[in-house]
């Protein structure tokens, strides 16, 4: 079991970050805001679900809107079966943008429910346990 916590110095950008236990670790895909914004809603959700179903943790800089998260839950339910039990999703809550009109999403982390469990969450901190077995 390995505790995961977002550090303030985490680098921005897209890439694959391997855990320290390379052979038994969890693959983590950290996707940059540019990449997230370049994808359409369905493309984004498909990308996430494919990643998570493969056992990876997907971290989206910029995050998903509440509507996208709801759609993701819906898509996930279509794919739940005996081997894939669903997703664990956590994110910093959106902040109000200019003149309170636009909601600005910040970061969303999604992982397979069988491997990831959020243990604590508040508006600026997410603590999760990720099982490597």
């Amino acid at each position, binding site marked *: 079991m390995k505790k995961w916590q977002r550090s303030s110095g985490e680098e921005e950008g897209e890439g694959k970050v391997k855990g320290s236990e390379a052979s038994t670790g969890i693959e983590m895909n950290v996707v940059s805001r540019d990449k997230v914004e370049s994808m359409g809603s369905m493309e984004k959700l498909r990308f996430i679900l494919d990643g998570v179903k493969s056992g990876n943790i997907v971290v989206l800089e910029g995050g998903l809107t*509440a509507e996208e*998260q709801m759609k993701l839950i819906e898509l996930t339910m279509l794919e739940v079966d005996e081997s894939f039990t669903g997703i664990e999703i956590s994110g910093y809550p959106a902040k109000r943008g200019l003149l309170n009109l636009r909601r600005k999403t910040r970061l969303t982390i999604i992982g397979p429910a069988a491997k990831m469990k959020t243990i604590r969450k*508040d508006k600026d901190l997410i603590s999760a346990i990720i099982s490597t077995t």
Partner: protein
Amino acid sequence: MEMSVRKRKRMRWALSKLITALFFRKKAVKIGIYGPPNAGKTTLANRIIHTFVDNNEDMGVATEIPHETRRVIKREGVLIDLRRRIMNSNRDRNRDRDRDRDYDPRPRGSRAKLMLDVVDTPGLATKIDFRDFMAYGLEEDEAKRRAKEATEGVIEAIKWLDDIDGVILLMDSTEDPYTQTNVVIIGNMEARGIPIIIAANKIDLPDATPQRIKNAFPQHRVVPVSALKGDNMEELYEEMAKVFR
């Protein structure tokens, strides 16, 4: 002479019915009861029906097993009439004070009236594992069937959001309210401009902390209730009449 009195009475009755139909009849507001599994959604729906429709009518079955409600259940034409409720309750109270322990009439004497279609929805979840049902003693086949139905129930509950005029988001006040499911439901309601009331349920339990829910969602009205015991339900009904009108 007697005929004319009877005729006048009948005409007055017909006229009052006509006026009521023309000016006071309102379209029912469709209210969805949403929340995570085991928050007490069906218990709340049953409580509303028992209070305003029929004490012997149930909307659904509530058990301790999660995802007991796996299909959306709708009950049309529920009239939330607080003035009548208070009058009836006071009458009952005078008749037999001990029988009406659940109800505490508010001194403010609300006149709120609201016609509702109550929609009880399956619990929203991001994961459903049939093995969790086996922990409640279900056979493997039954657990798998229930898990499959539960996933369909979640999808149906989400689809219903398009047809809902208002949401009561029910949370268990003994649990951490700051879950992503709760955040997502609130975010969606805000984005759609659908009014929402958060009901902090299970306040009858010793470890209930409704204040934690208030702290987590300070931008929304939180009403602490016990749907099972009926505690503080009048405040929720008044809030519903105010917010969903």
